[in-house]
């Protein structure tokens, strides 16, 4: 292992040599992704347990826009309220969370060069679940600066777990390679899961709340939830997006990154921190939604290409579209009852993924 010279950060990312000749984002696929997201959002806004006619939907959505709003007659106020305060924010939140989880999954897979990496690999889910369980068991109903303490505890737990894994990985293996970090993450996750299960068992009255937290909480989402996660997700996605070329270099080998005068270790740290920040925010508001972070990036790799300049932007679009569709199914299939969204993502996502794998003869995974 050579020690690379460190250059001032940030470097110019459009570097020479190894990064030449890798595919750019195909315009066609970007367009398909955009259309998929718009289509999913349209369906998500139109479908729901309460029937709201197309006319009402259009009227409600244009009414906040000046000029249009004045001309159109006010829609049925109860339906407008349902649409605007409940359904639209849920669609928006689904898109934010889906895009985030898929992007974080892709980033983790790149950083760790491990196809099985998902956003929860370093203990983010276990940490979030433990944080939320502690809040539910010991500080029920309390809030901090007007925000329910449960998502805050989830966010803190996720961030703390990954930080713990990073510190542990560095102490034990010196982070010479990614494997040490993964093993540290697995150990942390197992430990936190054990603590979480213990607390949950010793306080049976909290079980249902903990359970519904783990299965996701898009059910109660409103605009508050959107504003709560948006800043973190935005920062996270921008940082990962800016590192897509370095992830390509990293996929060739750590030496390739080091030869650019950039520390591979540092790239890994920055991408992991960014992905964790976004994942923690997503988990805090939506619970742990499995498979999105694995299925979406891999499907893109199989159908479009392996370069992170392709995978990252398309993961944002298709991840968002996928989760909006899954959530639409979650609230319409058994309407007016809800299905847990994690059930839908796995039930639909896993077979779809297998079909994609088969049809593309997944030699490249």
């Amino acid at each position: 292992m050579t020690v690379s010279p460190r250059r001032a950060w940030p470097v110019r990312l459009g570097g020479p040599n190894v990064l030449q000749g890798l595919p750019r984002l195909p315009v066609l696929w970007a367009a398909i992704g955009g259309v998929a997201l718009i289509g999913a959002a349209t369906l998500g806004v139109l479908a729901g347990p309460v029937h709201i006619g197309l006319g009402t939907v259009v009227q409600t959505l244009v009414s906040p826009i000046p000029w249009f709003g004045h001309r159109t007659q006010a829609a049925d106020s109860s339906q407008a309220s349902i649409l605007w305060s409940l359904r639209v924010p849920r669609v928006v939140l689904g898109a934010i969370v889906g895009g985030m989880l898929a992007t974080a999954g892709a980033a983790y897979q790149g950083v760790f060069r491990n196809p099985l990496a998902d956003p929860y690999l370093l203990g983010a889910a276990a940490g979030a679940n433990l944080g939320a369980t502690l809040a539910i068991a010991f500080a029920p109903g309390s809030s901090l600066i007007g925000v329910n303490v449960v998502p805050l505890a989830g966010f803190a737990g996720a961030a703390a777990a990954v930080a713990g894994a990073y510190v542990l990985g560095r102490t034990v293996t010196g982070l010479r390679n990614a494997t040490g970090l993964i093993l540290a993450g697995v150990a942390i996750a197992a430990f936190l899961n054990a603590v979480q299960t213990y607390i949950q068992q010793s306080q049976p009255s909290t079980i249902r709340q903990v359970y519904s937290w783990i299965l996701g909480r898009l059910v109660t989402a409103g605009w508050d939830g959107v504003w709560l996660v948006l800043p973190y997700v935005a920062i996270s996605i921008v940082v990962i997006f800016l590192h897509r070329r370095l992830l390509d270099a990293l996929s060739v080998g750590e030496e390739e990154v080091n030869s650019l005068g950039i520390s591979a270790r540092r790239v890994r740290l920055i991408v992991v921190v960014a992905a964790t920040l976004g994942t923690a925010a997503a988990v805090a508001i939506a619970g742990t939604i499995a498979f999105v972070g694995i299925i979406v990036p891999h499907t893109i790799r199989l159908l479009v290409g392996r370069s992170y300049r392709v995978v990252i932007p398309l993961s944002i679009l298709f991840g968002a579209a996928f989760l909006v569709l899954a959530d639409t199914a979650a609230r319409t299939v058994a309407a007016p009852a809800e299905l847990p969204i994690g059930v839908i993502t796995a039930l639909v996502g896993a077979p779809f993924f297998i079909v994609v794998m088969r049809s593309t003869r997944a030699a490249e995974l």
Partner: protein
Amino acid sequence: MRTHLIATSAKLVAATVVAAACGAATPASNSSTQSASFPVTINEVAGASVTIVKQPHRIVSLSPTATEMLYAIGAGTQVVAVDDQSNYPANAPTTKLSGFTPNIEAIAAYNPDLVVASDDTSGLVHGLAALSIPTLIEPAAKNLDGTYAQISQLGAATGLATAAESVNKKIRSDVAGIVSSIPKPARPISVYHELDDTYYSATSNTFIGQVYALFGLKNIADGATATAPDYPQLSAEYIVASSPDLVVLADTKCCHQDLHTVGARPGWSSIAAVKSGQVIGVDDDVASRWGPRVVDFLRLIAPHIRAVEASSP
């Protein structure tokens, strides 16, 4: 690991909530007995029968509802230990014993001569049978008849059959009195019963749903029985669109919900019950048990139904 955790949680949730689907109890075979007439054989709902050789004096209750029933019929002095969730009456000997994950050794350490539980989890009945300890399973009742049957069974099992019958008689007459105090509604009054702040509710297939049915209320959760017969998680937009006349919050303890928090939820301010202030906070425990305190619950709800009717056009 996560999957395992979810599976475990799901199992436990099933035990806590959904397992209420067991059948109603049949009356004890020997309900006319006095304290002298042991041995007594109790036929359980599940088809099993339990023989209690002599009057028990060291009862362990792993079911909060059974604890309330035992104390109501005057068997409290025969109870030596109750589980960690049994918080009523206040003088019940609460221990660390768990009814969700019962530990046979820990139960046996109390040297019980009768164990009462609501579910046969973790091989409870089998394990205690090996120690010759009889176990009576009193699962969640489906309606008030189930409650009466379980009280009768506990009366027979403890040698207090006569006391049990008079408790039942009292509950019957209290219930009848409260229900008859409400005139037949001119239009259907709708109710939303909230189990937690993620909108889990209870349909008319459940005990609490049957309690609402006594008043002739229209339960909005019944719209979801096709896919989730007992305890569906309702969509927020469905609840808002249904605009129930009454909202009953059985999540005041677990989730600290009240009229204020409900009114602050997005879109909920348009709900009839929120507008008229008919959002009723109830004790989570009273609303989730099928014991004698159902009368307290009915008493709490009744004036609100009258208020809704009075304000109806």
